[in-house]
């Protein structure tokens, strides 16, 4: 096997031997400097037949060939030989040979990863040049320079760079990668940025938490000699306990006069998130009457003109409403809009709100699952709903769903018997009870769904008639 381009060479050779049914025992694999065995390398005959190998093996082999273990080629071929008759072996993670190859693959990946992380360039050209040039000396544990060079080419496309290793060196000049054998270790010039980097390394370290083992398992000492910051580590460790003790012991100092100045500065700032204070019930935002405010993002205000004839009340904000801070913007809101358009209700002319102003849910994995508010929560929030009714003084309030109906009328009976009828509140406001649009989203039975959709539509038309509008749809 050659030193440069091993992956391709091994693949070609293995393919040929496999096609000719050469068993692994007859082959001796070696590097460029291994002396040739007299009887090795069986003659390659010309007749061949197609072979197929699982794709997962190809990617495994493409990594393992870079391992430093001299037996890697033989191990790969031996496993490939077995794989020919048992293709399922690739998914058998308990297999001893595969486990060994996977371990080698992991070593190579880790070595590649550490190379991407720990190569430290020094500038070797003019910093003001159009294409700046940099060079580094690095000692990887495996032959990983070749497969990793592409990474640096993708990352540093606009500069020239070279990485020298004891094995193979790579030079990237005017967007071309070339590999070279036996380059001597270069004498790289001092780089001023290194001092800044060490300063950063020393100061980003928190002396109050020493976890030396955690550091060394991720940054093994074998890499330290080529990393400028590593020289500072021993001092950082030895000084840490004393620094932490001093911090804990130091008595709090008295604040400087600038504290007052800062407070004045803060008072002058008004956040562009703050809604204008003329907004209806602006105190709602800081409501803590029930525990729901702890989990929800924000209280969701009613929305619409304060002189609206029609007011529509839902149950509570859902996930999307809670995030956006506006009522009826989620799926149920969109369904409502669809019906409203059909019937001829202009959403901009309607005041829309909810019986409960905070979103009640349980967090499950990545989702928030809606929970119906309980009686207590509805009663606490009724204060805000009554305030809104008082401010808007609508001709008719539509209660969508059982929660809204209970909040508005304090009567808790089944929705089906009440739907489509007008009830009178103690304060003289009439309430029309109907379904909640989310019921229409949830209902699976096609017959019931059809009836509910018709019912909801006719209720909305009725509501529109009550407030003196004319519907565009027909019953």
């Amino acid at each position, binding site marked *: 096997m050659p030193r440069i381009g091993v992956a391709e060479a091994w693949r070609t050779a293995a393919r040929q031997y496999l096609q000719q049914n050469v068993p692994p025992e007859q082959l001796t694999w070696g590097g460029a400097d291994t002396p040739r065995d007299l009887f090795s390398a069986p003659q390659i005959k010309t007749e061949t037949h197609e072979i197929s190998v699982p794709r997962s093996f190809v990617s495994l082999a493409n990594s393992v060939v870079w391992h430093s273990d001299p037996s890697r080629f033989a191990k790969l071929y031996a496993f490939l030989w077995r794989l020919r008759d048992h293709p399922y072996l690739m998914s058998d993670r308990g297999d001893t040979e595969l486990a060994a190859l996977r371990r080698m693959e992991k070593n190579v990946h880790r070595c590649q990863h550490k190379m991407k992380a720990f190569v430290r360039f020094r500038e070797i050209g003019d910093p003001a040049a159009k294409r700046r040039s940099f060079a580094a000396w690095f000692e990887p544990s495996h032959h990983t320079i070749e497969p990793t060079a592409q990474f640096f080419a993708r990352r540093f496309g606009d500069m020239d760079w070279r990485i020298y290793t004891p094995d193979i060196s790579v030079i990237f000049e005017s967007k071309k990668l070339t590999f070279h054998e036996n380059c001597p270790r270069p004498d790289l010039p001092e*780089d001023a940025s290194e001092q800044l980097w060490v300063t950063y390394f020393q100061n980003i370290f*928190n002396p109050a938490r020493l976890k030396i083992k955690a550091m060394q398992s991720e940054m093994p000492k074998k890499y330290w000699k080529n990393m400028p910051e590593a020289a500072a580590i021993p001092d950082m460790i030895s000084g840490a306990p004393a620094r932490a003790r001093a911090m*804990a012991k130091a008595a709090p100092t008295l604040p400087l006069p600038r504290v007052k100045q800062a407070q004045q500065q803060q008072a002058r700032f008004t956040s*562009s998130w703050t809604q204008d204070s003329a907004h209806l019930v602006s105190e709602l935002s800081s409501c803590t009457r029930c525990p729901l405010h702890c989990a929800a993002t924000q209280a969701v205000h009613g929305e619409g003109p304060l002189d609206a004839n029609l007011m529509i009340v839902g149950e509570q904000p859902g996930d999307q409403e809670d995030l956006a801070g506006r009522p009826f913007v989620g799926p149920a809101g969109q369904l409502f809009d669809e019906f409203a358009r059909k019937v001829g209700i202009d959403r901009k002319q309607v005041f829309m709100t909810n019986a409960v102003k905070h979103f009640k849910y349980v967090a499950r994995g*990545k989702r928030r699952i809606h929970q119906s508010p309980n009686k207590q929560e509805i009663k606490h929030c009724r204060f805000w709903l009554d305030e809104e009714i008082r401010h808007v003084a609508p001709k008719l309030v539509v209660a969508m769903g059982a929660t809204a109906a209970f909040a508005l009328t304090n009567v808790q009976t089944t929705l089906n018997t009440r739907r489509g009828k007008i009830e009178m509140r103690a304060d003289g406001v009439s309430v029309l009870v109907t379904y909640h649009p989310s019921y229409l989203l949830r209902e699976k039975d096609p017959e019931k769904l059809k009836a509910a959709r018709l019912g909801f539509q006719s209720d909305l038309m009725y509501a529109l008639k009550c407030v003196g509008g004319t519907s565009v749809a027909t019953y």
Partner: protein
Amino acid sequence: MVQYSTQQKLAILSDAAKYDASCASSGSTKRDSRSGKSVGSNEGSGICHAYAPDGRCISLLKILMTNFCIYDCTYCVNRVSSNVQRARFSVDEVVKLTIDFYRRNYIEGLFLSSGVIKSPDATMSDMVRIARRLRKEENFRGYIHLKTIPDAAPELIEEAGLLADRLSINIELPTDAAVAQHAPEKNPVQIRKAMADVRLRKQEAKDRSFTGKRPPRFAPAGQSTQLIVGADGSNDATILGQSTRLYSGYKLKRVYYSAFSPIPDSSAKLPLISPPLQREHRLYQADWLLRFYGFDLQEITSVTPDGNLDLEIDPKLAWALKHQGLFPVDVKTASRETLLRVPGFGTKTVSRILSTRRHRTVRYEDILRMGGSMKKARAFVTAGGWSPGALTDSADLRARFTPPPEQLSLL
């Protein structure tokens, strides 16, 4: 005012930034500089370029733009009432440092945070200016993480999200009451609103327009936050409850837990003792169980009476020891969900077991080769050639996993 050199400023402003645990550089859009017109790439997985002796990785140039601040949060070293050295970077300095470090392969990108100066809007717009310079003038394609200031104007947050890979807002304390006590200038509702805003913008940026064109990605590596553990009296159940709400509500990529550590010139209101680092570790383990192992918050936190996680053993083992009746599970037949509950098995081991057992019986040695920790799992599973016998129900099972009792020192 004293004029500092760049090196002095770097020392002050990186020292001030070290209490932020996040240093992730993963999960963003794939991009590179093969064309030769830009510098930097991002290939999905993050790279840690160095590790400090505190065990934390250094992936990004993590600095504050300035450590002047008008807020007075007790837990923060940069609060207005503290007497630490103050400094401020110019836009040029941050840009030059980032590019110079990046070209020498020291870092994956920039994590820029800042104390609040003048006003939240003024500070945010300065930070956005730095990100804009890096992206538009220096053609920087590496990673940028911007800390967002919750009160800053929505249009600034929008621009920040289009320039940066990740946005984050630290909520720092797990309850609204604790925020009110320790960070009087911060408004928890406003912090949540800002997170909700980022989530909605990300959601919108995913929808194609009617012409099929995709809008530019908004904060492609998502948003994250940090919670300080041990600065207030909250127990682990409260902390984990808060993080499940954050994950589910705002689709956070990560919630970082940072054990409260003493800071220079600390406030008299803070506790004197820092919590054990082990508590932080247990919280991360519980966080993973909640997100990737199908555990419910209730299951993890109900193991101990005080709602704190067991410090001696990991939360999955603690749960299993409370539910010994459910074990041993048979590796040959158990479902993925059940296998994920076995202490010592990770998600990868479980996938390997499932793919192997399609062909043959999984034996004890096989699981070892697959990466399972049989030291833990052996009491909880039966496999080909292995049965735990009375071990599963033995009364001293817990003692096998906890460290031996230590003699207290006399002095």
